[in-house]
């Protein structure tokens, strides 16, 4: 193993500082600052390593929303150029708001959204994900999807439903329950029909 004897290293530092001390006051100060910065960095790096070991700084992949595909119609006619909004909020994090516009056939699309977070590592964390997809059309608000998800991993049922988020604005907003193979029941408020 390659290492410098502590006493030897001290000598180097002293020699180096003496060299600098003979120069101007500013140099002396900059040497001291450099010395402290190096010490501080070393300290921070070692504590970071220790913290990593105990999982305090570990970041987890949090799946906020799968890819969304759908078509907007009103009384059977595709609606083009209407803005669709997706609002995602994880726990107390800042809301992530995105928007897209329907094409000439009324189709719209959002990419999958994932973030990294330290939160799932804490025993006290009970964060859930609020997913809201809506649009405004002729002065009226329409809710395409209003859900609250506790899982941070993709859920096959939600992925399937959001891959076909088609709606007719003349449909009434209703509460839906979907169950997957597991015991989880997903409750969603929506004007869409599957």
């Amino acid at each position: 193993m390659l290492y410098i004897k502590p006493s030897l290293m001290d000598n180097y530092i002293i020699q180096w500082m003496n060299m600098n001390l003979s120069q101007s006051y500013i140099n002396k100060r900059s040497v001291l600052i450099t010395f402290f910065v190096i010490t501080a960095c070393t300290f921070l790096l070692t504590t970071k390593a220790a913290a990593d070991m105990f999982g305090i700084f570990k970041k987890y992949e949090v799946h906020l929303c799968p890819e969304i595909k759908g078509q907007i119609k009103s009384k059977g006619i595709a609606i083009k150029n209407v803005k669709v909004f997706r609002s995602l909020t994880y726990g107390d994090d800042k809301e992530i708001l995105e928007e897209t516009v329907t094409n000439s056939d009324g189709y719209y699309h959002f990419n999958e959204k994932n973030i990294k977070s330290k939160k799932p590592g804490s025993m006290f964390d009970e964060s859930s994900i609020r997913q809201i997809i809506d649009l405004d059309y002729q002065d009226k608000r329409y809710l395409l999807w209003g859900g609250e998800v506790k899982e941070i991993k993709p859920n096959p049922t939600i992925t399937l439903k959001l891959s076909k988020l088609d709606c007719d604005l003349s449909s009434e907003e209703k509460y839906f329950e979907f169950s997957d193979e597991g015991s989880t029941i997903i409750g969603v408020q929506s004007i869409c029909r599957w």
Partner: protein
Amino acid sequence: MSIITPKIAAQLANVAYSVRAPTSRGEYRLFGKEANDLSQHFDFNLSQGPIKGVSGGLLSHLFNKTTGFALIGEGKGLYKNDYVVAVRGTASLQDGLTDAHFGLTGSETGSIVHAGFNKTFNTMKPALKEYFANRLAKSSGGTIHCVGHSLGGALAGLTADWLKNSYSLPVNLYTFGAPRVGLKGFSSKTTARVDNIFRCTHGADPVPKVPLWPFTHAPYNGMEYRLNSGQGFSPSSHKMGANGNPGYINSANSQDWQALQKKSNSFLNNSVRLKYEARHQASYSGYWADKISAALVTLLKDAGYYSAIMAQASIGTALTFYDLVARTLVNVVQASTKFAEQTAGLLGHMLVFAGQGAVKLAELNYEFIKWVFDKTLGVLYRSVKTAINGAL
């Protein structure tokens, strides 16, 4: 007076975590299955956002960082005229749980409680006051149900105590995995004051085991609803939601409190005297944590130091509380052979609890007694801390 079912209480405690500020597009409704189930019994108006509070350390208080803390609902149907206050926990309050230099303060109702919990409660109080001041004046005798999980359970406990003291109507408290909130005085007074207390725990949830004595749970008789029979300590057993093991939302899924298992660790009201020879019966568990606390209380009472110690605890000293206890035990040992033997019995059990069973009892001086206390508290706080900070 009405009582909400275990299932509804657990759903409320869980839904409190999904309460947030309205979105930037002005949406404030609660979504998901639980919110939908609860909407059959309660109306939540969140157009103004939830009841805010400030938690955390000096920095959060300096910048007045408020976050949503409580959800208030108005009952309908079966729960007409009732109100629910569901409070959520916050990770920033966790430091107060395992701090040996715990801070104490006077509560709203004049008892000694945890300073950190009370500080956070005080930031929520004005909003609660504003909400209830108008409504309860014209109330026609409904019940207020206060609900909370984890540190939210501690805040719900302070809320229930304050509401009952301020307004003369029935108040019930329902907690899941909540820590201890105050000393004996608070515990006994709030037990008498609040109409019904449903304290739910899991066997392996470490949070209800802290802070240690002199903190005391309410109800004062030690009664709790033990929703599963876990052993040891496991962080996932503290979880409320479906991602926990078992998750309070699952273990409390019942329509009837009678159907759930009641358990009473009445140690704190009974005398516990331990014999040194029998020390190997002790083990590292929540059961022995409670029993050792009770043996310490009994010893201090037997030797006539209990009141003095409690008075000191209430004032708060520069020394940590357990340092004071160790100093007192030196006097207890010197008082008589009988007390010296009882002290040896206690310390022997503490050593086995702390995994130091091989250590022989030395001279019962301050240094040795302090060392035994440090080992015992250290091992318990360490496992709670590991549970708190550890991965799932």
